[in-house]
């Protein structure tokens, strides 16, 4: 009797313990309870925050990857296309040579300053080819890209002031944007700043620019009307600086004599017509008696 009573007590105690364990287990898998605990601890917010961070990082990375496929902006396109053309034309333009130091930096900057072109940057490249005698190439609004031929300036024994005035003419042409307009590819507007992720980039416009520069040099050139405009602008800029104005007239006279007397430079007038007319346009108008 005693034994069975002890057995009952022990068994019921074990049974009670088992129930408690199951209850505990139930507590653990009670998701609502877990959720409440997590909510209470702020862990759910933490998970949400982490998820948001991960998604933000993924978005940023996707944007960064997309940005790698950008077509250059208009401002970056022209310097890049112009430099590429100069690289391709290196064997023709012969700019990789040991050139004399003309001390142009100071002289050209002084001329630009005198005519009020402040805060502008410039880059000048000397060529060992006889043509083009000089040329302004599209770059950016704040920077001018200018070329001049050493054989051309040497044939006339130009001073650094005269070379600077020659380059000033090209600055005015660049400001008019004539060569840029001529060389501007038809589809450029749709390409600049566009994204080509997942597509093959369209380089046709990029290569077309160089072909247009060459076509302009060999075939098109500046018109008489454009030359007249530039000459008048030079006159307006220089007339209050007699030393510069006289140097400009002297320069045009030298070019006129060179292109008429030296067959090597005879094609100059196809690009810049005509030094003789330019001198006439500069002459003071005769007063009617």
């Amino acid at each position: 009797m005693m034994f069975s009573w002890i057995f009952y007590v022990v068994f019921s105690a074990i049974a009670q313990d088992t129930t408690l364990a199951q209850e505990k287990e139930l507590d653990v898998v009670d998701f609502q309870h877990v959720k409440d605990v997590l909510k209470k601890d702020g862990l759910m917010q933490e998970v949400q925050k982490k998820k948001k961070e991960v998604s933000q990082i993924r978005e940023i990375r996707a944007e960064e990857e997309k940005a790698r496929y950008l077509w250059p902006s208009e401002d970056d396109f022209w310097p890049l296309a112009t430099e590429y053309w100069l690289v391709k034309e290196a064997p023709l333009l012969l700019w990789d040579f040991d050139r004399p130091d003309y001390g142009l930096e100071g002289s050209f900057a002084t001329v630009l300053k005198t005519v009020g072109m402040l805060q502008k940057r410039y880059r000048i490249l000397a060529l060992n080819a006889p043509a083009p005698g000089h040329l302004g190439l599209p770059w950016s609004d704040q920077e001018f890209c200018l070329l001049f031929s050493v054989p051309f300036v040497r044939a006339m024994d130009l001073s650094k002031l005269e070379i600077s005035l020659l380059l000033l003419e090209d600055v005015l042409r660049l400001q008019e944007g004539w060569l840029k307009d001529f060389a501007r590819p038809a589809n450029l507007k749709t390409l600049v700043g566009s994204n080509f992720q997942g597509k093959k980039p369209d380089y046709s416009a990029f290569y077309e620019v160089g072909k247009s520069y060459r076509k302009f040099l060999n075939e098109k050139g500046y018109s008489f009307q454009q030359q007249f405009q530039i000459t008048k602008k030079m006159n307006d800029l220089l007339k209050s600086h007699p030393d510069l104005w006289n140097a400009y007239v002297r320069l045009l006279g030298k070019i006129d004599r060179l292109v008429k007397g030296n067959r090597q430079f005879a094609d100059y007038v196809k690009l810049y017509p005509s030094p003789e007319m330019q001198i006439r346009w500069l002459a003071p108008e005769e007063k009617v008696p």
Partner: protein
Amino acid sequence: MSALMVLLFAVSAWAQNKAVGVFYFTPILGHVHQSPTRTSPSLTTIQCGHPLKVIEDSKVIIGEEWSLVSVADWKGFVWKKHLAAKKPDCIQGRYPKFFDGLSLDLAELYYWGRLHDHWTEGQVKP
């Protein structure tokens, strides 16, 4: 004795080459030159953003326009105006896929670098 020789050699090498700092190349492409002149032969072609260790060598006397640099196994000269203390914003960095797609050949890379040796650059200051 040999340890002393090594130490003396190291000290003399240190005295000869003094590091000025690391600078970054700024033009799109360029060259490390054999001598400090724009037409001197190229030792190696480098790209914008390339880090270059500028050094001073008591045995090398150069003008103010050039820096003596050490890059990989080369020791040569770079225009000072082409170096920046901070990493520059390079066109290759802005348009990496576009620039890669140009697939420039060795001659083009070489001439593009040479072009930047020949520019005369300036700004009109008020």
